[in-house]
C-alpha cells in the first residue's frame, strides 16, 4: 500500500529530511526517497504533524535535493521472518547480502519489538559453559542473560566473542545455539574474520548475519540491531531455538544515535549523547531472556569499545546499568601477552548465583570462585604496595598471595583460542593453583570442600 509521491522537501540537515504538505503520515512510518538520478533511499518518520514531517534517512542524505520524491509506505518498519533466515547473510537494512533470494516471509514482525511483560518472564538458570575458565568460574553465563563485553580498541574482544560462539554449550542438555550476528560499523577486515571463522567451523549454516560495515550508511545502524533482535525473537519465541545474539560494536550504534540527536538540535545529555540513550539501549538489551510458555531463549553478547578505555563513559556506563553484568577486557593484561585478557575484578555476572552449584556445575563452585577472586584481588593490591616498600616487607601470607596473582594470570586466565576447558577442568585447575597458598589463608573455602578437592587430600 504505497501512496502518492511528494516533492515537498524544505530542508535537509545531517541525516534528516524535513518536508511539508503531506498526507497524514504515521509516526515511525517507512519512507522511500527517489533521487533525481534514480537512486532510492530509505528512511523512517521521526516526527509528524499536519505541517511538517521529519524523516531520518538511513543511507545518509548525500545527493538529496528539494526535487527528490518522497513516498510514504503506509506502515512502520517490518522484517519478513521465517526459518529461511537461518544460514543467510543480510545487510544492515535486512536485504540479502549473500546473493541469495529475498526471504520468503512466514510473517512480518515490527522491528521495534514490544516489551516483554515482566510478569511473563521466566528466570534464567541454565549454566552455559563457554570453555573459558575466567568466564565459567568467575562470571558464569546463564542462558537468557545479557552479558556485554566491555573492551577497547585494539583488544581481542572479537576472538573472545568467537571463542564463546564456538564453544558455548549447556552442561545439562545437548540443545544447541543458533547465532544471530549483528555488525554495526565494524571494518570489513573484522567482519571477514568473523565470517571466516563461522564458515570454517560450520556455524554459519546455523547463523543469521546482519551486516552494516564501517563504510555502510551510519544511520542504518539504528535499525540493524533491531532487525537482528526481531529475527532472534522470532526464532526463539516462535520456533523454539536457543539464540545467541552477538552484536558489535555498540559504540558505533550509540554514535549514530548521537548524530541524529545533534541533527534534531536536541538538548544533549552527557558528552553529547541523547538524554534518551538509556531507554534506547534498554529497548535492545531487554530483548534478551526467557518467557513463559515458550521453549526458546535469547542470550545477548553485546560488544562495546570503551572510548579512551574509560568505563565511566556514557556508553559502557548506561550499558552496565541495563545489562546483567559485564566482562571487562584489560589492556594491561593484553600487553602482558595474556589471552584472554579478562580482568575478573571489575567483571560481574549478576545471574551467576542462579546457575552454579551442585546441580548444574559443581558443589564447590561458589566457594572456589569467591576464593580465587579474593586471593587474586589481594595479590593484585599487594603489587602496588611492593612497588613502594619492597617484597621483603611482606609477611608470609602476603608473599604467597602476591605470587598467586601471577600464577592466576599465567595459568588460570591464559588459555589458547581453541582450548575448550570443561567446568570440571576449570575448577580442578583452580584447586591446583590455590594449593600454592597455605590452606590457613584460604578462608573463603569451606572445610568440607578442602577435604574433598584440595590436591593434598586427593592423592
Amino acid at each position, binding site marked *: 500500500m504505497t501512496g502518492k509521491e511528494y516533492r515537498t522537501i524544505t530542508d535537509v540537515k545531517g541525516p534528516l529530511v524535513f518536508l511539508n504538505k503531506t498526507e497524514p503520515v504515521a509516526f515511525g512510518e517507512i519512507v522511500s526517497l527517489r533521487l533525481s538520478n534514480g537512486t532510492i533511499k530509505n528512511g523512517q518518520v521521526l516526527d509528524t504533524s499536519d505541517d511538517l514531517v521529519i524523516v531520518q534517512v538511513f543511507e545518509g542524505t548525500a545527493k538529496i535535493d528539494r526535487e527528490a520524491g518522497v513516498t510514504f509506505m503506509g506502515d512502520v518498519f517490518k522484517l519478513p521472518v521465517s526459518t529461511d533466515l537461518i544460514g543467510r547473510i543480510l545487510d544492515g537494512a535486512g536485504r540479502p547480502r549473500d546473493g541469495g533470494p529475498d526471504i520468503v516471509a512466514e510473517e512480518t514482525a515490527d522491528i521495534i519489538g*514490544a516489551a516483554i511483560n515482566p510478569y511473563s518472564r521466566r528466570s534464567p538458570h541454565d549454566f552455559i559453559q563457554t570453555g573459558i575458565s575466567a568466564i565459567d568460574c568467575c562470571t558464569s553465563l546463564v542462558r537468557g542473560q545479557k552479558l556485554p563485553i566491555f573492551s577497547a580498541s585494539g583488544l581481542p574482544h572479537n576472538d573472545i566473542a568467537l571463542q564463546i560462539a564456538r564453544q558455548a554449550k549447556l552442561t545439562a542438555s545437548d540443545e544447541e545455539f543458533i547465532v544471530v550476528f549483528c555488525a554495526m560499523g565494524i571494518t570489513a577486515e573484522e567482519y571477514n574474520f568473523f565470517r571466516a571463522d563461522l564458515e570454517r567451523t560450520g556455524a554459519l549454516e546455523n547463523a543469521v548475519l546482519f551486516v552494516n560495515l564501517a563504510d555502510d550508511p551510519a544511520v542504518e545502524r539504528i535499525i540493524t540491531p533491531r532487525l537482528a533482535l526481531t529475527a532472534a525473537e522470532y526464532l526463539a519465541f516462535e520456533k523454539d531455538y536457543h539464540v545467541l545474539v552477538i552484536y558489535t560494536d555498540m559504540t558505533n550504534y550509540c554514535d549514530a544515535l548521537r548524530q541524529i540527536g545533534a541533527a534534531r538540535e536536541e538538548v544533549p545529555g552527557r558528552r553529547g549523547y541523547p538524554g534518551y540513550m*538509556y531507554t534506547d539501549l534498554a529497548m535492545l538489551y531487554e530483548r534478551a531472556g526467557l518467557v513463559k510458555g515458550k521453549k526458546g531463549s535469547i542470550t545477548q553478547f553485546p560488544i562495546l569499545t570503551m572510548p579512551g578505555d574509560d568505563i565511566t563513559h556514557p556508553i559502557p556506563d548506561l550499558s552496565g546499568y541495563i545489562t546483567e553484568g559485564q566482562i571487562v577486557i584489560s589492556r594491561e593484561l593484553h600487553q602482558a601477552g595474556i589471552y584472554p585478557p579478562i580482568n575478573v575484578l571489575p567483571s560481574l555476572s549478576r545471574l551467576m548465583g542462579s546457575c552454579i552449584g551442585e546441580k548444574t556445575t559443581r558443589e564447590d563452585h561458589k566457594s572456589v570462585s569467591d576464593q580465587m577472586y579474593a586471593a587474586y584481588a589481594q595479590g593484585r593490591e599487594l603489587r602496588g604496595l611492593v612497588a613502594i616498600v619492597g617484597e621483603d616487607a611482606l609477611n608470609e601470607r602476603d608473599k604467597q598471595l602476591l605470587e598467586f596473582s601471577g600464577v592466576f594470570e599465567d595459568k588460570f586466565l591464559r588459555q589458547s583460542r581453541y582450548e575448550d576447558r570443561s567446568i570440571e577442568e576449570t575448577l580442578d585447575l583452580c584447586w591446583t593453583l590455590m594449593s600454592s597458598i597455605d590452606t590457613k589463608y584460604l578462608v573463603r573455602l569451606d572445610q568440607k570442600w578442602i577435604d574433598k578437592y584440595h590436591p593434598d587430600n586427593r592423592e
Partner: protein
Amino acid sequence: MKNEGLIYRISGPVVTAINMKAAMYDVVRVGTEGLMGEVIELHGDKAVIQVYEDTSGIRPGEVVVNTGETLSVSLGPGLLTQIYDGIQRPLPTLEKEMGVFLTRGVDADAFDLEKIWTFEPQVAVGDTVTGGQVVGHVQETDTIVHKIMVVPGKGGVVKSIESGDFNVTQTICTFEDGSEMQMLQEWPVRTPRPYQQKYPPVIPLVTGMRILDFLFPLAKGGAAGIPGPFGSGKTVTQQSLAKYSDAQLVVYIGCGERGNEMTEVLDEFPHLIDPNTGKPLMERTVMIANTSNMPVAAREASVYTGITIAEYYRDMGYDVALMADSTSRWAEAMREISSRLEEMPGEEGYPAYLSTRIAEFYERAGRVETLNGEDGSITVIGAVSPPGGDISEPVSQGTLRIVKVFWGLDAGLARQRHFPAINWLNSYSLYPQSLDQWFRDNIAQDFPEIRIELSGLLQIESELQEIVQLVGSDALPVDQQLTLEVARMIREYFLQQNGFHEVDAYCDINLQYKMAKAILAFQESAKAAMASGAQLGDVVNVPSRSDLMRGRLNKGYIDTIDDMVKTMLDEIAATVEDN
C-alpha cells in the same frame, strides 16, 4: 470547544491535539486505538499530551477524546499482592489480554471488581463521619485489615450501614444527604492525600541490616537515598529492605530497571516469610513494575502511582515502606518528555523543575496523624543511579538536599566483594538524635554509645590505613595494630552481610547489639592481655574468635553468642599465661 479533538503532531511519546477542550492533567484517549494519555501542557488551542503507550503507527488527524478525569489510582481491597505497570494496570491481566509481549490499547481494572469481601462496619446509623474517617473494614490478607475510609472531602450523617458481603463497587453505606459510598475509591496521583499533622520521626525502621540499623538508622516516616554506580548493590539493598524491614506494608516500584529483577522478586516473595510476622511476604506487598523498555511516560507516572497507594495504607494507620528503584530513571523520563516539549533545559538537560519534583516526592514521606486520628507513616527509600558513579549530578544532588539519610554505595567496596558496599566513612544519617531514645528504651541503654565507639574505630582505621600504605602495618606500634585488627573485625564480622545468605541476610536488632558488644569485649580483653605481656599475634589468633565470627552464619546464633564470647575471653586471658 468540544471534548473531542484531532491529533496535530506526534513526536515519540508526546502527542499534540488541536481543537479539544482540555485542562492540565486531564486523561485523554489518543487515536483510533484509544491509547491512554495525560495533558501536560496547553498552548493556545493545542493540548500537549504524554502518551502511556507506544505511539508508532499513529497519524495526525486521528481523534483524541478527553475523558475529563485526572490521572488517578483505584484504591480499595485487592491492591495487596498485585503487580502493576506504571499506570496501575495489573500485569497478569495484561498477560491474559495480550500474551507475553506488551502490545497496546488494553484497559484493565486495577483489581477484581467482582470479588466479594466481608465488610464489618465500625460506625452506626446516625453517626456523623468526615473525610478520611474509617467506617468499617475487611480482612484483605491474613496480616492486613483493610480499613474502609470516607473519601477526603466527603462524608455526612450515616443513614444506613450494614455488615455483609459486598464487592468493591456495591454501596456499603448511605448518607442522609442521599450520597452513597463504596469500597472502591479513586484518588488523583499527583495530589498528596491529606492528613492532620506531621509528627517528628522517633521510631526507627528496623531493617535487619547491621550497617543500616546500627550506624545509619532510618526513621519510620523518614527518607533515604541510595546512590551508587551500577553493580554496587542498590537493587539488592532495596530488595533486602522490602524483605526484612519491619514496615507493615511495602510498595516496591521497579522504575525503569531490569525485567528479570522484577521476575526474581515475583518468584521469590511468595515463598519468603516476613521475619516480623511469620506470614508470606507477598501479603504485605504491592509491586509496580515499569521496566526500562516500557513506555517512559508510564515510567514517569509510576512513582506517583506507588506513593499514592502508600498514602492510602498510611491513612489506615499502617507503617508503609516504599522503595523506588531507580529514581534516576524517573528523572530521566521527565527529561525525555521535557525535551520533546522543547522546554528550556536546566542542568544536564534535566528540566528546571527537577529538584522541585524530587523534593515534592520525598515530602510525601512522613509519620502523620491521619484524618482518622491514628498514627501512620511512609518511609521512602530511593535508589539513585548517577552516571559514572559521580554524585555531583543533578538527581543525586536534588535527592541529597532533601533526604536525611545517605547510604552511599561504593564501587571499590563492591569490587572487594564487601557487601553491602555502603561506604561507612561518607554515608550519614541525621536521625540518630531523634531515634536514640527508642534504642535506649527498646534495645539497650548504651546502644547510642556503642554506635559511637564503632564508628570512631572505623574512623581511626581509615587514618591509620594511610600510614600503612606508606610503611606497612608491621611498622605501627602494637596498640595501633590491635586497633586495626578490631576495625577489621567490625568490617568483616559486623558490616559485611551477604544479602543472599539464608541466615545472615537478616539480623535481629538485639543480635546486632550483642555482636557489637562482642567486638568491644574482644578489644578490651585483648588490650588487657597485651598489657600483661601477651603477644598480639596470640591474642588475635585465638581459635574461638573465628568460631565466634563464623557463628553468625548459623541459625540460633542469638542463643549461642554469649557463650562463644565467654570462651573467647577465656582464651584471650590464657594467652597471658602462655607467655
